[in-house]
């Protein structure tokens, strides 16, 4: 049994891992399987699990909100046409197979799986898919971005659709696969501006939501699983646990205590300082460390104010010491890496372009650059919130680094709601601190790579670099093209990538078969007695 295994220590940050969460948990689960101890129990059906999440999701409509929490919960209810497998490769989910793409890369022909049952008992058809994708392109921030690329969306049969593009758009399938801002396929009759009935095809269906208390999902008895072996989010999905209870627990300490006391079977995103306490909970509690979980970044205002001048943004970059900022944000080096590559080694998008411009921490050179660019002492307004303590700690050190380089600075410490509002007004700030998850496709984040994001980065060079990157469908060539985009970010400095951090979560040893990934999921997971 896993509970009898010796406690495994938390591991330091490693290179990019296919499985992003719980390398330890995965190793433990494999070991249990090889010992022949887990197999019988891993298939056990029944029970209810309490899953402590970081808060109440921003609604239940996964199209409307791009928040991770909404996607995490609702990916059990809704499924997309495509998803990511264990190697972060695109794999079919509701689609029968990968699409037939025309040679010019403009026409995607997608066949749907036959006999897929919706939660209301009806079979899924092309009309549901078309209506869902149209709604996605109208209401979802991600869908709207895709809509700009789409020429036509039509049904080519009762179980087949076609997407015709205006120009080749390589990130299309990744956009369709992402669980946040999700291109969720819903029953046509349930579609409305504000969804009241959440009818999807997922292995679980919504039973009850009591805001700030729980969201209860129960097994979809007529679920039509794929035949392929499970891999990442792809392949066979099986609802082994009767009831999933997502409990919002915003207070991290309460999540930790709940996990240690056995009340929660899973506790999401704990502060890294709690690693020792989680470790002490073994063997009943298993720590989950996910390397390269996310990256903090500093957005610079390219639209208005002092930093609208590219040379001054470069001076800010020269003054910045990212290694110091990561140390301030995450303390223990086993929870972060400071490296210039935006994507970790071993991934198709690993590139060392711009490495010389990373972690310079050179106040003298920054001062000279600023003087040359005509800096005349206007204060740089650094906007930051304490919602995420590491944002604040990074801002404090950045402030000192900039002051050392001769910049006048002004810290604007606001709450998260205020920051989210103010960042959309270019007149109110010069830099702000935020973070994002490391996704398998560069165009999924940060939003500054797209259009209309805070900071207003919009230059001819950006258009050229991103157009050629997005229109190239050959994965090998895309890797090289990404290097050019990364170099451009270092040259034009619309944002400064600080580094990559690892996340910490915890699960009960009773929760078996758990596959650790970025958006945690609980199908193919069972509860030991």
């Amino acid at each position, binding site marked *: 049994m896993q509970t009898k295994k010796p406690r495994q220590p938390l591991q330091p940050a490693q290179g990019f891992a296919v499985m992003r969460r719980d390398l330890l948990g995965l190793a433990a689960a494999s070991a249990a399987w090889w010992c022949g101890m887990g197999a019988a129990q891993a298939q056990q059906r029944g029970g209810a699990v309490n899953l402590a999440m970081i808060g109440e999701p921003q609604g239940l409509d996964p199209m409307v909100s791009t928040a991770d929490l909404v996607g995490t919960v609702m990916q059990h209810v809704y499924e997309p046409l495509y998803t990511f497998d264990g190697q972060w490769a695109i794999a079919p989910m509701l689609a029968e197979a990968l699409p037939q793409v025309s040679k010019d890369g403009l026409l995607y022909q997608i066949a749907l799986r036959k006999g897929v049952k919706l939660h209301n008992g009806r079979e899924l058809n092309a009309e549901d898919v078309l209506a869902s994708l149209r709604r996605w392109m109208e209401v979802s921030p991600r869908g709207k971005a895709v809509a700009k690329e789409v020429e036509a969306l039509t049904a080519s049969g009762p179980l087949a659709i076609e997407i015709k593009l205006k120009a080749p758009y390589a990130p299309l399938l990744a956009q369709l696969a992402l669980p946040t801002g999700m291109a969720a396929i819903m029953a046509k009759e349930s579609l409305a501006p504000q969804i009241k009935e959440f009818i999807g095809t997922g292995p679980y269906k919504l039973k009850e939501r009591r805001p700030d208390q729980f969201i209860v999902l129960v097994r979809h008895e007529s679920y039509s699983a794929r035949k392929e072996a499970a891999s990442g989010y792809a392949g066979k999905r099986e609802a082994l646990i009767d009831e999933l209870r997502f409990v919002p627990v915003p207070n991290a300490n309460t999540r930790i205590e709940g996990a*240690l006391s056995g009340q929660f079977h899973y506790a999401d995103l704990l502060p890294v300082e709690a690693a020792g306490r989680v470790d002490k909970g073994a063997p009943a509690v298993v720590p989950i460390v996910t390397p390269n979980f996310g990256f903090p970044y500093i957005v610079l205002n390219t639209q208005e104010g002092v930093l609208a001048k590219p040379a001054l943004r470069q001076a800010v970059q020269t003054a910045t010491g990212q290694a110091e900022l990561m140390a301030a944000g995450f303390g223990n080096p086993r929870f972060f890496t400071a490296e210039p590559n935006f994507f970790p080694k071993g991934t198709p998008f690993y590139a060392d372009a711009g490495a010389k411009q990373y972690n310079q921490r050179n106040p003298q050179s920054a001062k000279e650059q600023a003087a040359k660019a005509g800096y005349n002492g206007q204060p740089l307004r650094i906007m930051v919130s304490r919602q995420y303590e590491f944002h604040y700690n990074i801002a404090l050190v950045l402030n000192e680094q900039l002051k050392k380089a001769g910049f006048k600075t002004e810290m604007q410490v606001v709450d998260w709601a205020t920051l989210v509002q103010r960042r959309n007004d270019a007149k109110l700030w010069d830099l702000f601190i935020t973070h994002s998850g490391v996704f398998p496709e560069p165009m999924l984040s940060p939003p500054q790579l797209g259009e209309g994001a805070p900071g207003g980065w919009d230059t001819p060079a950006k258009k050229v670099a991103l157009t050629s990157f997005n229109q190239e469908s050959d994965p090998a060539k895309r890797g090289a093209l990404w290097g050019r985009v990364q170099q451009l970010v270092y040259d034009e400095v619309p944002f400064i990538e600080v580094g990559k951090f690892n996340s910490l979560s915890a699960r009960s040893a009773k929760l078996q078969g758990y596959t650790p990934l970025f958006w945690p999921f609980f199908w193919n997971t069972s509860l030991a007695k």
Partner: protein
Amino acid sequence: MLKFLIHRLGGALVVLAIVAVLVFALTRLASGDPVALLLGDQATAEDIAQARVQYGLDKPLPVQFALWVGELLQGNLGQSIFLQQPVAQTLLERAEPTLMLALLAVGIAALIGVPCGMAAAIWRGSPSDQLLSSVAMLGASVPSFWFGLILIQLFAVKLGWFPASGYGSPDASFAERFTHLLLPALVLGVLNSALIIRFTRASMLDILGEDYVRTARAKGLGEATVMTKHVLRNALVPIITVLGLTLALMIGGTVVTETVFNLPGVGNLVVRAVLRRDYPVIQGTLLMIASVYVFINLAIDLAYTLVDPRIRLEGK
């Protein structure tokens, strides 16, 4: 009595009208945008502007205020932006744990505070009095989050006697929910008992110095009779006041305890609504909390009249 009641009710309505204006104004003066939070990081300014129209947040503030008051007069507290359900329904769901918690905590506070305060007054200046007064002082100074965490560590994590947090599973029985309230009620009860001890002691000492107590003793009445019939009964007015106010404070002010124990109560709702800038929930909840304060004060006034007829006469 009727005149007294009408007079107090009129005053209460004026207070509530002022609260409504203040709550609306202060909520809207604070920066932050519920829609931006709702849509997430990938939403552009254009998406946000579109959604603001959907929620009526693009209208001028006086129009928004008039619409809100209009709805209020029809008994509608509005619709939560974030939770997408009526505010009244949200409040109703949250009222139960908060009320239960507050009543349980006040009960615990009274059970500890009144006898200890009486004992301290009766044995004034003795080591028992000094000990009780010191404990009361200590109790009043302990932060509730710290005390809560200690109790969770001890009774939930180490001993496993009580759940660490929450308000029970979706299909929880009354008994199960009750067990979830015991630890937080103990935190609030013990910490608030400090105040009750001090009030009871002071109030008892005041009464012990009165002529009629001396007269009662001179008449040869037993000490127990003097204490219960003459001293305690008269000391009850300030004690009822402080118990009532403690209850009222708890209904809106159990924020920290509710947060530590992740109880889905009113205090927790207010904090989360403020962080989410869920205007209708903030406005509705604060108005309801103000109403509870006002009406508990009214109830205290009425209780006075029952305990002390002189107050009723003054109101005439």
